[in-house]
């Protein structure tokens, strides 16, 4: 059984004619000890998807589909059970550690808090565990008495990761964990996350706009566009040999330093991502697609088999058979 199985997940904000579909039918699976990357640009629905996994969305959001965590449906859970699952079963690392930490509490106390609440640890036990967690994420235990403003951005992000690990969850969802950080600090944090996933057998969903970061860190990679997964496959394959024209454009937008093809040739994609409130008909990518056919404006495409390793892409130019439901299979 997979650690995480997402089937037909839909999230809609608002009701009636002004309803905005943010996630429009996503199927994904994740095995324990592996990493799934979700890539996409602003407004593609990737952060909404992350929040939906733990039902952290505002009350205006309506969810449909199933999210199975160790076989148990998160969307159908009662409130008390959900509270236990958050932190202990699955935890989330948000982007912007600056705003996610409480400015007036010492970081040691913030790490200890979930332990006191969810694990009923004694104050001394929680303090000891908080010190251990700080060491695990590469901060000296003596920093437990520091306030967030006394730490650098990279150190704050380490504290966020320590908090996410506090109750030894099976799944961690990290939404842009390194976005505001410099490349060297980003490399430090990504190494740390990789090491923790490998050592503790945690399943990790890593969400980022940076396809290159995901290609380096993840086993599998899903590319989202306008609320749907338009490509999914082994991370390196999706980055190096994308089958969907959007996947190709996104990959080409990340320059490979040293590659003559991208020297003095920045590559973007004309146009802007679609407004979720006014999605184009047919394939939502067709207005920006360099290889669109006449039919693309009318007919949307399902994910189709695009290559070995359960590589899938939702494009009319991909010849493989349509795939139903989650891709499931590990390569």
């Amino acid at each position, binding site marked *: 059984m997979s650690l995480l199985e997402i089937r037909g997940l839909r999230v809609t904000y608002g009701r009636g004619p002004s309803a905005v579909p943010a996630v429009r039918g996503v199927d994904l699976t994740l095995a324990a000890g592996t990493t799934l990357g979700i890539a996409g*640009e*602003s407004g593609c629905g990737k952060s909404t998807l992350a929040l939906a996994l733990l039902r952290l969305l505002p009350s205006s959001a309506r969810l449909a589909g199933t999210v199975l965590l160790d076989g148990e449906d998160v969307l159908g859970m009662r409130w008390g059970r959900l509270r236990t699952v958050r932190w202990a079963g699955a935890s989330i690392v948000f982007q912007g550690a600056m705003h996610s930490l409480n400015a007036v509490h010492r970081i040691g106390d913030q790490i200890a808090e979930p332990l006191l609440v969810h694990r009923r640890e004694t104050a001394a036990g929680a303090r000891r565990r908080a010190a251990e967690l700080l060491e695990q994420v590469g901060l000296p235990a003596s920093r437990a008495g520091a306030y967030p403003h006394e730490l*650098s*951005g*990279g150190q704050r992000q380490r504290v966020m990761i320590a908090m996410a690990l506090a109750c030894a969850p099976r799944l961690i969802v990290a939404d842009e964990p390194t976005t505001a950080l*410099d*490349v*060297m*600090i*980003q*490399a*430090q944090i*990504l*190494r740390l996350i990789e090491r923790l996933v490998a050592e503790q057998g945690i399943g990790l969903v890593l969400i980022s*706009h*940076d*396809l*290159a*970061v995901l*290609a*380096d*860190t993840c086993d599998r990679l899903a590319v989202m566009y306008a609320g749907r997964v338009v490509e999914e496959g082994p991370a390196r394959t999706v*980055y190096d040999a994308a089958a969907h024209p959007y996947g190709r*454009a*996104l990959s*080409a*937008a*990340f*320059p*490979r*330093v*040293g590659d003559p093809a*991208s*020297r*003095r*040739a*920045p*590559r*973007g*994609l*004309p146009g*802007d*991502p679609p407004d979720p409130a006014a999605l184009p008909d047919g394939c939502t990518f067709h207005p920006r697609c360099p290889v669109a056919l006449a039919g693309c404006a009318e007919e949307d495409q399902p994910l189709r088999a695009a290559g070995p390793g359960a590589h899938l892409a939702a494009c009319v130019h991909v010849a493989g058979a349509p795939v139903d439901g989650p891709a499931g299979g590990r390569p």
Partner: protein
Amino acid sequence: MTGAYAEGAAGPRKTEASGPLLAATGLRVTFPGRRGGPEVRAVDGVELAIGTGEIVALVGESGCGKSTLARALLGLLTPSAGSVAFAGEPLAYRARALRAYRRRVQLVLQDPSGSLNPRHTVYDAVAEGLRVHGVPGGRDERTAVARALARAGLRPPERFFGRYPHELSGGQRQRVVIAGALVLEPELIVADEPVASLDASVRGEILALLLRLRDELGLAALVVTHDLGLAWNIADRVAVMYLGRIVETGTVEEVLSAPRHPYTRALLSVLPGGGAEPVVLTGEPPDPARVPDGCRFHVRCPVLASGEAERAGVADACRTRDPAVLPAHGRDAACHWAAAAGREPDGRDGG
């Protein structure tokens, strides 16, 4: 107003046959220390030159002093030592002279949402520079605004005149900011992280615009960024900054394809998607109020830590001798080990 750029003119415009357009010599910017502590050496001796029609990338991590250096080049900060010269003339730090200077050198800020007034239309945002510099309004102003918007890729420009920032996408807002800089027909723009807040697909479009402006108008640019990929995408030359000093400089091909300074090598090795073995430096860039003695990088230097510098016989120099300030031109690295390795033809493969 008479356009200095003829519409559709081909090839870079030349203002001067020789000498750089903008040059910094021995530039230092210091700030008083906090609570009587040691002074902060944000820019600690920098030589930098940008030629007409040249795109130079100033690369470094947060806190390395790159934004302070950019502000000093724009005359927004008075240097504590050294000088800035534009077209051969040293900057005069008087209000009138600075105003004339800032007409020829324009700043493009990161985060277009923050630098546009939400209650000003696109037309007002772009025309603001003209008004500040006392260019009369009327039909000339309309023509200039339309031309700037068109050059920034917002076509047809008239359709954008009455729009407000919230009605535009992130990429369009960044184009408005660029149009606001172009409207005064500057010779150089200083762009601080011009694409950091944009989506990847839009990023490429904005960078392509900067390249096109250089090719069509001969517009020179200093691009301040932490993104080496951006330098590879558009720059001619690159200067790598660490703790207030330029530590490596040369053409983009020289520096990014064959880096000499261990810091540049480490930065390149951690670029995602590269596949090379990453050299992850521990710790964070030290405090500019406490610049280490000797080479300022020696406390984090992997070449010194691995004993490589010892074998090359430079370890003592690394710890005690500050490498000389790099000249503004040419190919060089401020590194004792690289200098020693350079003297032996195949001594460079060790690190």
